């Protein structure tokens, strides 16, 4: 196994966009399309590891962008602290999340993280960030922030904590600084169906009824995952509605010439865990970005990307915000599918 190395200097996901994937990161990118044509499916599988080196191997994947993504989260929260939000009944869920992340990172990356427990007196060490913190598990006053905020400021990916009640799941707490155009403040407290209201086509297919029924039955120790995807212009993590004015116009900047450099495929590894103390559910959204240029260094991916984009359902083109540059992108991709 090759050792995990972080990028020597911080990359940016805004302004000058210095984020780049190394060759190794390109190789392990979770390419999401099983077929040349894309349509929704409840594409769930067990999240109990994956091939060594793949993004599925560990419970929470840490990669070369770790320090940069942590810094990006700090910047977003500094501008808009409400990207972390919680309802008052979510304390147990928050402690569940803190425990799950700390235990997983300490187990999966012992050279970087460690957790020592003496009953409720815990010692957490995050060596990449230079953190050594002792606190009392269950006592919020011993941490600088809410437990979920504290630990997700040290993690890659967004995290939504759902409370399970009335045969439904409610998005009642979340840390969301890299969403694909949805707002945590708008969605906070919503039921599963309300939350997914804007998604086109899938409701008629009964996808969400089936998905909810499945999720309610997820058991302790048997997490599941699925992939979701969209496209983003420039390697921008924070494409929330709150900052639409910063990124919406970038869609107009794509030309047939620069599409390979500008357009990024954004793949989310979405994970779902039953939480032990609260009986709630964690929805983890870990986003990976790759430029079309880097993606197309893999001929099979390049060909399939072209076919998926060319045949994408018009409502999905619209929903994923691709309308404006769809033609330019398909044109650029066609060179790999002759």
């Amino acid at each position, binding site marked *: 196994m090759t050792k995990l190395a972080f990028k020597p200097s911080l990359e940016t996901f805004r302004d000058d966009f210095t984020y780049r994937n190394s060759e190794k990161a390109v190789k392990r990118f979770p390419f999401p399309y099983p077929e040349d044509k894309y349509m929704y499916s409840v594409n769930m599988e067990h999240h109990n590891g994956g091939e060594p080196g793949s993004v599925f191997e560990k419970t929470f994947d840490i990669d070369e962008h770790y320090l940069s993504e942590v810094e990006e989260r700090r910047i977003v929260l500094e501008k808009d602290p409400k990207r972390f939000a919680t*309802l*008052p*009944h*979510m*304390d*147990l869920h928050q402690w569940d999340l803190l425990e799950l992340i700390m235990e997983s990172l300490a187990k999966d990356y012992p050279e970087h993280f460690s957790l020592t427990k003496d009953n409720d007196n815990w010692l957490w060490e995050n060596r990449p960030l230079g953190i050594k913190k002792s606190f009392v598990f*269950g006592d919020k006053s011993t941490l600088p922030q809410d437990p979920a905020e504290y630990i997700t400021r040290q993690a890659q990916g967004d995290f939504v904590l759902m*409370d*399970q*009640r*009335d045969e439904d799941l409610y998005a009642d707490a979340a840390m969301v600084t890299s969403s694909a155009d949805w707002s945590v403040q708008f969605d906070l407290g919503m039921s599963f169906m309300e939350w997914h209201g804007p998604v086109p086509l899938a409701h008629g297919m009964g996808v969400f009824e089936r998905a909810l029924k499945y999720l309610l*039955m997820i*058991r*302790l*120790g*048997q997490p599941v995952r699925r992939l979701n995807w969209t496209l983003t212009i420039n390697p921008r993590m924070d494409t929330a509605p709150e900052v639409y004015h910063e990124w919406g116009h970038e869609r107009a900047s794509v030309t047939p010439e620069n599409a390979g450099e500008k357009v990024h495929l954004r793949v989310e590894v979405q994970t779902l865990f039953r*939480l*032990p*103390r*609260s*009986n709630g559910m964690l929805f983890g959204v870990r986003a990976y970005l790759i430029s079309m240029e880097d993606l197309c260094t893999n001929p099979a991916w390049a060909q399939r990307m072209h076919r998926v984009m060319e045949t994408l359902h018009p409502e999905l083109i619209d929903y994923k915000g691709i309308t404006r540059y769809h033609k330019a992108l398909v044109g650029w991709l066609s060179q790999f599918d002759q």
Partner: protein
Amino acid sequence: MSTDFSHTARVTRADQITPLIKNFSFERVDGKPFGPFSAGSHAVIGMHDGSESYKNPYSLVGSSNNFMEYQIAVRLESNGRGGSLFMHNNVEVGTELEIGNPFNLFPVYKPAKKHLMLAGGVGITPFMAYIDEMDLMKSNFELHYSIRDFEHGAFAKELKKKYPEQVKLYIQADDVIANFNTILNSQPLGTHVYVCGPHQMVGDVLRIADDLGWPTTSIHSEEFKAPDPGNPFTVTLAKSHCEINVRARESLLEALEQANVEIPYSCRGGACGFCKTEVINGEIDHRDYYLTDAEKASGKCIMPCISRAQGDHLTLDI
């Protein structure tokens, strides 16, 4: 979904806490901690008694923060099918049993402003973990606990001593009977009610709450119903081309398991939905709480943990 999530556990304590209830503590044989669980969870205990095997769900009692040990309280059901008899007569310190991962069908309603627990007899068990959690979270709670007498009231004395204000005991022997009408009529808005106890008590509470205009979403109940015996019948498995006999005192699920047919399960009492199985033909005697009336009427699926054939034969799509 796999059904293989059991740990082998060893009994570390077995105490007769009332004339009818025994309290058992377990630790994992591999020495690892069990891990936390949420208040209201149950775990399925697997027992082997010669050629018979039982899998019964029991509420996890006690602190969800003691990971080394799980605890259950088992009431002796002398007319039952054997699981509780086995636990009472054959299980002692050192006995090894299978224990499944916890699953929760009776969770605390987190946003409630007040938690009102109504327990009868051994129905106290899920509330032991509830009270621990509510104490920890500094929630507003009240427990109304009906018992025959102090001798039969599991945990009654210790609960009353620890929470003299929040715990109210109703002792039948002293002619003190809980008046659910009065209790339910004097609760603040935002109260959620949890009831666990004998079938009749749960029914009374649900009816009174309905009469008083309580929203059904504010009333939560749990009854562990053991599968009642019925007439023997045969089952044809269409996909695996075999035939199985279901005896009078065993459930369809148990008969399938005996024949090495794997069906996912959790509560084994017709509530959770895991074991739902497609039926091709044969009339079904539905006894579960899970399927909707429309699903039951369709005759196309069965919960084999508790439901049976109406006649003498069923064909299943497995």
